[in-house]
């Protein structure tokens, strides 16, 4: 046994020396192995998104080998009985064939689709963590902008992906996208014609273009941005919550080797495991049930994937305002919900660090995070804004609520046209007062309790057994790093 171990060690050393003779990277490798990751579960949300992206690239490569971006109409003669003899595009047929005739094809397709849904969801949750803990402040503001850009790209990427299939649902989604493109004031029609290569449903070059966007342009950009995102994190180190021994100038946590590396690999495997389990066990986008698309066909209850849901909600909620002078339509209606709304949301998020600096006059570098309750106003603004977007998102499924509960659809729409403004204001005040009261009592809303554990003896005497575990974190007491006056900081 010992002999074996010694041999292995010798081999390993020899390998390391071989590498060092060529790279001389020992310093960097040592630095990497002892790189410290602060311990908190919420710091792993971004990692979930990263690993979902890896699954997306892997499964997507498999799918790309089978997908044909063709719009020529063909007749289906495959194994699926319900489409026998049906006229459909080559693209749709290739995906039906992938689902039914390629071994494990459906598994990969479904895992890919679940991965897309979870990818964007993880990014959104990660963004919430970043926002409510103030992690977007200097020096991480640039990285925050990169993250927001990746969120936008991820949404576009997902939409492009399910639009490739040319089934009834994706065709309806593309029709709406065309409507939104045309609605851009002034340039809409030119833009729509540019993208589709002509009027909807577009020329034969549209699907190949969309495929290039989906499999090359956006994923490539995402890969570059992810690399930048990670390099910047490594350079600045993770932020951390305040706690014993945790200062602005240091970072306390688990070194990469060995424990963190194993845990992180575990998370990668867990992400892949969950996505493949979902891909195998829960059906997603059964395109064979939707049938092929033609511009004169549609179905009830058509919905986009969840990350486009906020747009369909906005499109449905919007009153029919469409200002026009003669034959000049100043703002076509889909612009409000399909373009202005998401643009506004992203502009606010991009501008937020500057807005906050403007009001707090805090231009300092922050490496210690805020607990949400410690910034009641920011937390309340964030909660109100989030609820505003979520209400609009939820309005996208009021039709289903009508079907289930028979609450008049028009009444729901009229109600939410007002509620979408009133409710976030209420949430602002409720959140702010909740944060303030939490800060006063300094208890954790879900887990912490404060007190002393005692035992009452038979004689009535009280024995003190100990204090509750003090899980409340102490606040930062030192000045943040980089105390340079505000003006010279811009």
């Amino acid at each position, binding site marked *: 046994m010992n002999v074996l171990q010694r041999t292995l060690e010798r081999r390993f050393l020899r390998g390391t020396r071989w590498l060092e003779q060529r790279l001389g990277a020992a310093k960097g490798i040592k630095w990497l192995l002892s790189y410290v990751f602060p*311990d*908190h*579960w919420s*710091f*792993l949300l971004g990692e*979930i998104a990263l690993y979902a992206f890896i699954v997306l690239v892997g499964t997507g490569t498999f799918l790309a080998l089978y997908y044909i971006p063709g719009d020529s109409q063909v007749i289906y003669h495959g194994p*699926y*009985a*319900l*489409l026998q*003899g*049906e006229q459909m595009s080559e693209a749709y047929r290739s995906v039906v064939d992938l689902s039914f005739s390629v071994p494990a094809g*459906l598994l990969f397709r*479904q895992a890919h689709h*679940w991965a897309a*849904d*979870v990818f964007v*969801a*993880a990014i959104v*949750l990660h963004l919430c963590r970043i926002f409510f803990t103030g992690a977007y402040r200097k020096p991480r503001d640039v990285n925050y902008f990169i993250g927001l850009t990746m969120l936008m790209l991820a949404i576009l990427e997902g939409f492009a992906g399910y639009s490739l299939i040319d089934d*009834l*649902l994706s065709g309806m989604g593309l029709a709406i996208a065309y409507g939104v493109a045309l609605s851009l004031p002034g340039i809409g029609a030119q833009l729509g014609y540019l993208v589709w290569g002509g009027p909807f449903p577009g020329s034969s070059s549209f699907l190949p273009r969309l495929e290039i966007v989906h499999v090359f342009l956006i994923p490539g950009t995402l890969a570059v941005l992810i690399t930048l995102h990670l390099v910047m994190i490594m350079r600045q180190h993770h932020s951390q919550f305040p706690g014993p021994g945790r200062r602005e100038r240091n970072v306390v946590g*688990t070194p990469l080797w060995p*424990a963190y590396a194993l845990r992180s690999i575990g*998370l990668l495997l*867990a*992400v892949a495991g*969950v*996505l493949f389990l979902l891909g195998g*066990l*829960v*059906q997603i*986008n*059964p395109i064979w*049930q939707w*049938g092929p698309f033609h511009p004169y066909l*549609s*179905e*009830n*209850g058509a*919905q986009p*994937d*969840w990350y486009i*849901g906020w747009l369909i909600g906005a499109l449905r909620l919007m009153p029919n305002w469409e200002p026009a002078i003669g034959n000049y339509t100043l703002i076509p209606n889909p612009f409000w919900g399909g373009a202005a709304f998401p643009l506004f949301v992203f502009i606010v998020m991009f501008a937020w660090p500057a807005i906050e600096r403007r009001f707090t006059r805090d231009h300092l570098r922050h490496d210690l995070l805020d607990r949400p309750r410690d910034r009641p106003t920011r937390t309340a603004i964030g909660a109100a804004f989030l609820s505003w977007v979520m209400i609009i998102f939820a309005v996208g*499924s009021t039709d*289903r609520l*009508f*079907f*289930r509960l*028979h609450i*008049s*659809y*028009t009444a729901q729409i009229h109600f939410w046209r007002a509620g979408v403004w009133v409710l976030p204001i209420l949430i602002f005040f*409720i959140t702010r007062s*909740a944060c303030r*009261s*939490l800060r006063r009592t300094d*208890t954790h*809303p*879900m887990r912490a309790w404060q007190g002393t554990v005692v035992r009452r003896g038979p004689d009535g005497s009280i024995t003190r057994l100990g204090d509750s575990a003090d899980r409340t974190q102490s606040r930062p007491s030192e000045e943040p790093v980089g105390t340079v006056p505000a003006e010279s900081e811009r």
Partner: protein
Amino acid sequence: MRRWLTRRSRIPAVLRLTLAVILAAGAVAVLAAPSSEGQTSSGAGVPGGPPAGVNAPSKSPEPPAPGDPVKTFPDSPALRAQGYTLYQAGCSSCHGIALQGTPGVAPSLRGVGAGPVDFYLSTGRMPLEQPREEPQRAPALYTRGQIDALIAYVASFGGPPAPTADPAKGNLALGLHEFTLHCAGCHQVVARGGLTVNVPVPDLLAATPQQVAEAVRMGPYVMPHFGTRQIDQHDLDSIARYVLWTRHPVNAGGWAIYNLGPIPEGIVAWFMGLAALVIVARLIGERLA
């Protein structure tokens, strides 16, 4: 507020998250599940073939084309007499003692024929408690024998014969094609139901081929009716077969989450996929020490 927020909890975080996932899965079921009971159709009366007087319905049942199979219901003087009694007790307050209807409340039933009577009664949509409410699918109030009696009585006032459909003669691919063209706009492509503005559209999970045929030809409540020019007998057989198929469609992908598409998918992605991963992150996020 403060008490509630700062209240201590003895449940471990992981259990709480798991509980949240289970509750969310329940929410999927409540929000996304098609309701077999939640059907609507057929407002008040049933149409009359030859428009009969001022209180006629706005549309009349389509007669089967010559040579198409029809559904014959039992008929006899005794049955008609029983039907008369049932009609006077259960229907006449709205539809009138002589089937002439009540203006503003319910249409005339003269000349509607057997199909609509069978449809509305066998799906439990009639009788209605309030004339203005939307008829919903419900357990039938009358027994099969009583329904036959009412059919015999009402059909004795004339009207086209009831249509019928034989799924065995239908073609599934044609059924999907025709269903997409004529029906999916309201009923959703896998017949899970939906809405047109302010009228819920039923799912078709409980619809029998006979009821499908009757509904297609007569257009209950606000549904259009379809004649043989749009949907011929072979198409009708195929649609009936497709509707039966949608009860158990090909769910090669696994758990079908109600065949509704992206709404339940999004709920699963968030509250099962991402939630499970957050639990994993919660487990590994902090050192065990």
